[in-house]
Structures are given as C-alpha cells and as structure tokens.
C-alpha cells in the first residue's frame, strides 16, 4: 500500500480539526474538533510504527503502544473537558467560548 495515503488522510483530518478549533463557537464542538486532531495524530503513530516495525526491526511495537496511550489520554481529556464545559455552563449560563474571557489580557 502507498505510504502517503494514510498520511495525507491524517493531514486532512488535522487541518479540518484546526479549522474547527479556530472557528467553532460552542465549546463542545471545539472538543469534538480536538478529538479529530487527536485521531490524526494517532493515525500517524500507527502508520510510522508499522513502517518502523517493517524497516527498522522495531520489535516492541512502539507506534501502536503510543497510539493506545493517545486514545486513553484522549478519553481522559474529553472527560475533564466536558466537566469544565458543564462548570462553565453552570456559572455563566453559556457555552460560547468567546464568553470565557475572564483571563484575557
């Protein structure tokens, strides 16, 4: 299989995630865009891990193990992130991230 296909797919997902993070208003939708970017990073880890296992003789599957860690950290991140969004909604009655400017200089 061509190596560039999954890599370009991951680049597309990452760019789309960047667009979502920069332009979405709703904090939950921003979290979803962050999840898309994490998925793109995971694809890169898996693909280069397979390449290293085939070409460099990486016998401990570093890429897949790191991808597994990224999946777990992403699950933890979305849990804490949604808790923060709920707290913001409870205190300010809004999930618009433009309203969260208390620490803005």
């Amino acid at each position, binding site marked *: *299989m*061509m*190596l*560039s*296909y*999954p*890599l*370009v*797919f991951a*680049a*597309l*997902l*990452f*760019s*789309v995630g*960047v*667009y979502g993070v*920069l*332009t*979405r*208003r*709703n904090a*939950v*939708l921003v*979290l*979803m*865009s962050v999840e*898309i970017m994490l998925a793109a990073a*995971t694809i890169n880890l*898996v*693909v280069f*891990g*397979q*390449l290293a296992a*085939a*070409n460099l003789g990486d*016998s*401990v*599957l570093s890429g*897949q*193990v790191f*991808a*597994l*860690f990224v*999946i*777990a950290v*992403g*699950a*933890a*991140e979305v*849990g*804490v992130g*949604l*808790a*923060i*969004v*709920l*707290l913001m*909604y409870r205190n300010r*009655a809004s999930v618009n991230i433009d309203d969260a400017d208390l620490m803005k200089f």
Partner: protein
Amino acid sequence: MTVYDVVMLAIAVIGGAAALLVVTARNVVHAALYLVVTLLAVAGTFLVVGAEFLAWTQVLVYVGAVVVLILFGLMLTRAPIGPMAQHNDNARLGLLVSVSLFGFLATMILSAFGDAALPLSVTTAGDLGDVLYVHWAFPFMALGFLLTVSLIGAIILARREEGEGPEPLMEPGMPTSRPEPAASDASSTPGVTRPSEELPRA
C-alpha cells in the same frame, strides 16, 4: 494499485468528507453523528494497516464512549439543537490557516514519501499484549493512574456544591428544593448519632 489502496482511498474520502461536515454542520447533534463516521474511518485505517486491536479499541472507546459523552454534554448544556450560525467572526482566517496548513503538510508528505510503499503486516491483540504487559508495563500503569486521576478530577469539577450556581427557578409557595437540614432528619438517620443524644457516661 492493490485492493488495499482502493479501500484506503475510499476510507479517506468518506472520513474526510465526514470531518468537513463535523466542523461545518449547523446542527450540533448532526455534527456529533458525523464525528462517529469520522472516527469509524480512522478505525478502518487502523484495520487496513494491520493494527486490529487498535481498530477495535478506537470503536469501543471513541464511538462507544466519547461520542455518547459528547452527546450528553450537548444535552446537559442545553445547546441550541436547531440550525443556527455556529461560527464566530474568525471563519475566513481559520479557513486560510487550515487550508495553508493542509497544503504545507500534503506537499511535505508527498515530496518525502510520494512513492514509498508501506509493507503491511497484521499485529494481533496477542502480539500487542505481549509487549504491552512486559516491555511497556510501567508506562501502562502510569496511564491507569492518569485515568483514575482524571476521573476523580472530572467528578470534583462537575459536582454541584452547596450554594453554588444559579438557584433553580421556583414559583412562590412551592417547597424549596434544598430544605434546611432538620434535627429530626439527622436523628432519624440510621447509624448517625448526634453528640447530644449520646448516652451519658456512667
């Protein structure tokens, strides 16, 4: 062009289109459902490159848990479900940044790996478990600790503390939702003795 190439291209097209719909959908619930398609495409990519355990982990964790969590987040924050403008004023700038980022990344990838082939090999769950519980045992335990801490942190953050947040709207005359703790309540609770009710020391 092998069958893997065709499957990978189809997955990339479907996943990319769904990701574009996630960030452009005007209905937030539709965006969450398009996210399911995107994450399934990512799982399909894992299957094509031979990481089968990761593919099913992706399906279980992301499609099964994270999307449900996000849907609950949309529900609990009473997000405007109907179609409405969801983008802020930076849409044009964000489009410029992301398109130029994609152009840069795609150019670099195609110039570096344009004709390289990925040798495919299947990694079974047993292979991954062999290295995960032996070679990666300590990072794996650290990951479990991280998950525990984040679970506790999420509970502490999302818990409604006494007297915090807006009062619930109530008609006058309705019973208050937060009754003052009466003495009879505390004394009638099994297993709880108040200091004044302790037996006098003989």
